């Protein structure tokens, strides 16, 4: 595994967090009141380019960073993103070469990330499940990720394999 691939992946995650907290932050671009979950989307999109074990570590790191930037209990998004990275690693062979599978993965795994967070945070004493609009907060990021999946995955494919001519090129 080339080190540059992991470094690129980390840089992509950091960029995603910065964009998520600024461009897609509160009061900015939030169609229908909820922004896309960009960090989860790039995590799913990075799965074909990073070895599964590194990808799981990347998921955990991304989750911890999101926890540290956010207001919730530390470790909850880390667990959620680790699960998503693990599942994405399992599915990566399927959606690496299929646009339909990649879109399905973007939607489903984003949904998984949100649901896992809501359940785990509720178990840890937060009132997440009882929040108003909790369904919209779970579903809408998955819908927006479905919309953004093609361009984001294209950018990632270009970053890792600019000469690759597959579905995204």
């Amino acid at each position, binding site marked *: 595994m080339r080190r540059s691939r992991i470094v690129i992946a980390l840089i992509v995650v950091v960029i995603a967090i910065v964009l998520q907290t600024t461009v897609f932050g509160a009061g900015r671009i939030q169609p229908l009141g909820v922004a896309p979950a960009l*960090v989860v989307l790039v995590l799913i999109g990075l799965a074909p380019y990073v070895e599964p074990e590194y990808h799981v570590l990347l998921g955990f790191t991304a989750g911890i960073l999101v926890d540290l930037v956010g207001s919730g209990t530390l470790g909850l998004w880390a667990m959620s993103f680790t699960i998503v990275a693990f599942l994405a690693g399992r599915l990566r062979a399927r959606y690496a070469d299929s646009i339909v599978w990649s879109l399905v993965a973007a939607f489903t795994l984003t949904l998984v990330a949100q649901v896992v*967070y809501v359940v785990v945070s509720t178990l*840890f004493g937060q009132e997440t499940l009882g*929040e*108003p609009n909790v369904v919209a907060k779970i579903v809408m990021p998955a819908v927006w990720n479905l919309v953004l999946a093609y361009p984001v995955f294209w950018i990632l494919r270009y970053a890792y394999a600019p000469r690759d001519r597959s579905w995204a090129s």
Partner: protein
Amino acid sequence: MLPQSGRRVNRVTILFTSLIAIGFLIATFDVRSESDDVGDVLREGTQSVFTPLQKGVDWVTAPVVGFVDGVANLAGLRDENDRLEARVRELEAEVRATDALEEQVVQLELINGLTIGEELSTVTARIYASGSTPFDNVRYIDKGSNDGVIAGQAVIDEDGLVGRVDLVSANDARIRLITDPAVSVGVRVQSTNETGIVTGRGDGPLRLEMYRASQPVREGALVVTDGSRYPPGLVIGSVARTAEAEVGFVLRTQVEPAANLSQVDYVKVIVGFSPIDAGLESDAGTTTPTTRSAATGDG
């Protein structure tokens, strides 16, 4: 090939299980720990890395985001509507503030020897970033301890209370919105003059609980801070639905926040009113789990 593949799967599964266990331990430690020193240090350290990037991206993309927002606003019609709505909110806030001040004056006049102090000094700050998920209720502002900001101070906008200062660095600070379940504020219902506690629910209306209420609270009644930790008379919002007071029961209802928290760009930090327990705030006021909301409560 097969054994290699099998080993890889096993390695990934073991790593996955270990990381989940580590995440679980971190969360347990964060919830159970009495002080948040380690968590705060980590949060401040992370934010110090992200702050320059966030400010840069915010500066670069602000015009684009504004343009996109403008297009989305139906070529000016919605802009005009927003402007007028903002003006109406401003005027309503002025009326509410005037009512609150009149009420305070009456009360102060009843207490001999007390005079109203000078107007509280504030620092205007711009919000440059927010939390990264829809479940986060934090905003980052571009003013910090160099500007007199300390943890626990109240943050307001033209409509009312927005939240309180949570973490502070030299030039930046994090504010926790009043909708955060970890934030509780001691309040007074203006129409009945009875006190209670308002707590965030993550989103939408706030929860109002009054333990010694003897009168009903009516829909639309103004709710303001009681002055126990934040300056008195800051507008929180208005009662969303009428609730009757019953002997032996806690009066529970909801309060619609006056501030439009999803659209706040600029805020004011009240630096002229120090939290009565600023020391406590720095230790316990930055807690994140709701289990510690009582410790951070105002009432």
